[in-house]
């Protein structure tokens, strides 16, 4: 925590990364630029998901919460005429508020029961979208969602410009999430995960902290949903179904959830594999199969995720012997 050298390294790394990200769209084709937009949005989604997992609870409703942000932002702008930047914030807030409400039933459960409970809650929300044609548009969902307004001569219809917009929003969000984790909040979230009774005994209101983690995670998931909705212009219940949740799980688990960057590595690596390699090879149909195999393999052989490779590489480069496998954080919960 107090290690200032690590902090400096992190900053240097982050700035280099940012520079690379700024140049990136200039090097890509049009369709790859679109993929880059979605990738940035997904980074926010999976990093916000990780915040939730810090408390030890694995939700299966995170993508639905993203959908809440998307639907809410779309409805605020489309039906009520709220300006899009404001509606995005309101959408994210709606997602956060949904989490506050859901906390009351869901945090009576833990571990496996929470997993199932969050799944059920998510499915109920999806059924509500499906059932109520007004205002949610039923199974077809909403379309013609207003896009982000032009700023001067900058049109956000162009993926490159939208990419930069997302980059700004997501960078700020990640910074906030990072600060939260490095603060006492992060310590308390971890404490809830490993020993909630002990945390309680020194005065931690476990419900409130679980709710805080869930609400923050949901706010940013909702924001990612809003960014998505106003770019693609249409949302429907199927877009936020459990299949999509599975992808978030895969990103998080393949990357590893022990560190902040783990899930980012996961989503970037798998997006490159998925949208660059597989698409180029024409393997679109067998994509889920490869994902499935990767998922099984990573649970079996790489319980700490891709992130565990970096410390190993570092040790190798420094010429030290690799230590025996350390504790697996990603796999053993709940």
């Amino acid at each position, binding site marked *: *925590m*107090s290690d200032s050298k690590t902090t400096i390294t992190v900053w240097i790394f982050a700035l280099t990364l940012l520079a690379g990200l700024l140049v990136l769209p200039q090097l890509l084709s049009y369709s790859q630029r679109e993929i880059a937009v979605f990738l940035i949005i997904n980074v926010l989604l999976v990093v916000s998901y990780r915040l939730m997992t810090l408390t030890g609870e694995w939700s299966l409703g995170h993508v639905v919460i993203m959908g809440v942000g998307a639907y809410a932002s779309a409805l605020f702008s489309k039906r009520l005429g709220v300006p899009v930047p404001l509606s995005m914030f309101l959408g994210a807030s709606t997602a956060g508020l949904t989490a506050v409400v859901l906390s009351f039933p869901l945090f009576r459960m833990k571990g496996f029961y929470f997993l199932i409970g969050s799944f059920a809650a998510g499915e109920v929300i999806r059924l509500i979208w499906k059932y109520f044609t007004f205002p949610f548009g039923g199974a077809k969902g909403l379309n013609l969602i207003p896009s982000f307004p032009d700023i001067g001569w900058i049109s956000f219809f162009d993926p490159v410009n939208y990419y930069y917009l997302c980059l700004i929003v997501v960078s700020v969000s990640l910074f*906030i999430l990072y*600060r*939260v984790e490095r*603060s*006492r*909040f992060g*310590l*308390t979230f*971890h*404490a809830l995960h*490993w*020993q909630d*009774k*002990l*945390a*309680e*005994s*020194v*005065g*931690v*209101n*476990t419900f409130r902290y679980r709710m805080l983690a869930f609400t923050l995670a949901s706010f940013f998931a909702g924001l990612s949903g809003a960014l998505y909705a106003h770019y693609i212009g249409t949302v429907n219940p199927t877009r936020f179904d459990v299949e999509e949740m599975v992808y978030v799980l895969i990103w998080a688990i393949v990357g590893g959830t022990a560190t902040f960057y783990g899930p980012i590595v996961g989503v970037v690596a798998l997006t490159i594999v998925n949208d660059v390699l597989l698409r180029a090879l024409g393997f679109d149909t067998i994509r889920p199969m490869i994902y499935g195999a990767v998922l099984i393999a990573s649970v079996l052989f790489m319980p700490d995720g891709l992130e565990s490779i970096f410390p190993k590489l570092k040790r190798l480069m420094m010429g030290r012997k690799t230590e025996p496998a350390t*504790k697996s*954080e990603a796999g053993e919960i709940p």
Partner: protein
Amino acid sequence: MTQPILEVCDLSRNFGGLLAVNQLSFSVIPGTIHGIIGPNGAGKTTTFNVISGFYAPSSGHVTYLGKDISGIRTDRLAEIGLIRTFQGTTLFNEFSVIDNVRLGCHVSAKSGFLSRLLGADRESEAVATKKAEDLLAFFNLSDLRDEEASNLPHGHQRALGMAVALAADPKILLLDEPFTGMNPEETARMMTLTRDIRDRGITVMLVEHDMQAVMGLCDMITVMNFGSLLTEGTPKEVRTNPGVIEAYLGSAHHAS
């Protein structure tokens, strides 16, 4: 006589049909080490769990500093200075030693969301870290500051557990079987530590099996049997009480 810090009044707790604690009353005087003993199944642990907010009492009540606290959640009790420990080694195993104690400072290091985000909590965090370091020094754990808690030897882990509890600024500290599973040497060290804690002005109440430790340590002892109060007094009074001897012999009989 001084006003008791903790008062248990006609406390009962049943599970289904089983009466674990029956009409129990006793009080704890501030600045003392108060032991609760009794043979297996006497209801000590249930009593402990009711006082520390894990169970609500079925009837009766618990008063702390003149305030009825029966059925109040553990974390609320912690906020007002009633801190419990756990049997054995319950720690944040994955945390460093210092982070364990820093988390113990939860209540005194409160801060708002924005101030944490903006780093305005730096001052209160520095205070918490200082407090944690002082506590580590008190428990002779300073050298292990950055070690992962799970790597500590057993005796040190138990001491760390006490340090976490002390970090929460207890007025009264409830110890759940602090000597269980300790060798004589560790027991002696733990006894000294407990006295030092009392000498800091913190009242200690403990539930314990180890008769020898209890007799040597406690200022007052409450003896329970079959969920009820058997007798109460100083170690000397309790030791010579025929009822106590019988209860312990009787239970030894049953066990064999």
